[in-house]
């Protein structure tokens, strides 16, 4: 589904930074992959390279059979197949919840508004906020907003979902409701790449756990392998700090 090969990413502003150093990773269809690692280790950058919100400087990133770093690739079509959920929700504040969900299917996929509305309502039902469909995002709690954001991404019928710390901006009591939605998605067989600090969720849901540090993948394995039997010292240090 996703295959990153020897990906490098540099930032030049404000100063030169080698943010991703030869990162290779394969995500199988239906797999739930969780990326953990200390702040600044390049997790977000890597995730954003997967739908080209960041343009990787070297390597190949194959998504669904297309190399997205190829200049000829139709990136808009590809992004439509890759859902993304942001730490800060990024809902469209000038649109109602329902319009947030229908805009892209209508403009990008050319769905009729009836089709889009039906799909949107069933997704809102699924994430448990159908009754809020006519309100604006700023009238919702953080947890509700993030669930709407997940529904918005799902409205495009994506093949893969990318989550960048979806619960980090939430009050503790709202983390659960968002993780529940993600858990359901994983159980339904959605291909997911999740960056998170929620170790309980990682342990329970992840098919594979990837530990990143300083722009590189240091160690990967099943949650048991990583949590109980980490090989690398940096992994051990990180886990000891966070658990």
């Amino acid at each position: 589904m996703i295959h990153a090969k020897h990906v490098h990413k540099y930032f030049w502003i404000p100063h030169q930074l080698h943010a991703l150093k030869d990162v290779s990773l394969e995500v199988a269809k239906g797999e739930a992959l969780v990326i953990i690692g200390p702040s600044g280790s390049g997790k977000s950058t890597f995730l954003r390279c997967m739908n080209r919100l960041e343009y990787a400087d070297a390597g190949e990133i194959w998504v669904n059979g297309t190399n997205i770093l190829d200049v000829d690739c139709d990136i808009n079509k590809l992004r439509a197949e890759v859902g993304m959920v942001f730490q800060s929700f990024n809902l469209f504040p000038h649109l109602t919840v329902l319009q947030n969900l229908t805009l892209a299917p209508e403009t990008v996929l050319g769905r009729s508004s009836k089709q889009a509305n039906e799909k949107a309502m069933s997704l809102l039902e699924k994430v448990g906020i159908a009754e809020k469909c006519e309100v604006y995002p700023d009238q919702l709690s953080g947890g509700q907003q993030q669930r709407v954001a997940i529904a918005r991404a799902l409205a495009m019928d994506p093949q893969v979902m990318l989550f960048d710390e979806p619960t980090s901006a939430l009050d503790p009591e709202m983390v659960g409701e968002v993780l529940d939605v993600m858990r359901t998605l994983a159980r339904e067989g959605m291909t997911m790449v999740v960056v998170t600090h929620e170790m309980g969720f990682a342990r329970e849901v992840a098919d594979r756990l990837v530990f990143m540090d300083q722009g590189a993948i240091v160690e990967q394995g099943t949650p048991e392998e990583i949590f109980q039997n980490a090989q690398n010292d940096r992994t051990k240090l990180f886990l000891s700090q966070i658990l």
Partner: protein
Amino acid sequence: MSYFGLDRPRSPLYYTAWKITFVVGLLLTCGLFYYAAASVHYDWRWYRVPQYFWYSGQEDIRSDFSGTVKEVQHTPSGTVIRFAAEDHPGELVSMTLGAGSEALVQPETDVYMGDIIAKRSFSKPGILLEGLWVTVVVSSFAIVAGIGIGLVTGLCRLSNNPALRWGAITYIEIIRGSPLLVQIFLWYFVVGFVVDALLGQVGLPGIAPLWYGVAALAIFTGAYVAEIVRAGIQSVHRGQMEAARSLGMTHSQAMRKIILPQAFRRILPPLAGQFISLIKDSSLLGVMAVRELTKATREAVTSSLQSLELWFTCALLYLVLTFMLSLFVQYLERRAVR
């Protein structure tokens, strides 16, 4: 008010006292002006002002013939006077007076050519009203064109294409860096001269100065609107564009559906300020023979010498225009509250 609550609460007396202070200050200022005006023995003749808005008068109608009036006939379309004219022997010739005319001759009156035979009352818009209309027309065209120019330039200013970006920067810097009055002279005496000469060579009539005025104001305002638009777009959080693009929207779809609607609400207040400036700046167009409100007032002052009343009136008219504009923008702002 914006930081209300950060300091200790004020007593109601505080507010009352300062409200009274404001009113007293206002009255005092007005009184001082009044006193000053009264002490220079100026004859206030406000009754002379209305004629500059709507002018009523009478004009003489003179006979086209020499001879004898034979008949004065009132018809629905006006009064018809028939003559037995000296140079048309054997037949009656007639003159038709337009509506609102009143014949001063009866049948069997002898008249010579050029004698006053009737009076016609007429009324027409006065010079101030005409000037006001020109100001409204010029400003409206300039505002609409300025929005278009500003939007396009603002988007170019943010484009990745160097030609577009540098083009926008050059335009903005040049326009903002020179006085509007000079730009108006350039439009009229340089651009106008060249364009009219070129048109003349191919046998076309020249363009009215009014349109050079509209162009000068629109191009001037466009530069400022472009900067307002740019700031508005940049004030929309980056995550909005990323979210829109991550859903597969193209750059222009995201711009139109996500960024611009959010920017619109934020740029309304500064836009209103810019357009209020434009209405006031249109007063400079008098230098290029456009008889807008200020020029019209100057002409009225020259003919009437009631300068105080007329300049007050002029200022008041501008105030009404700008106030209506800002009410309209406030209405838009309330409607676009999201």
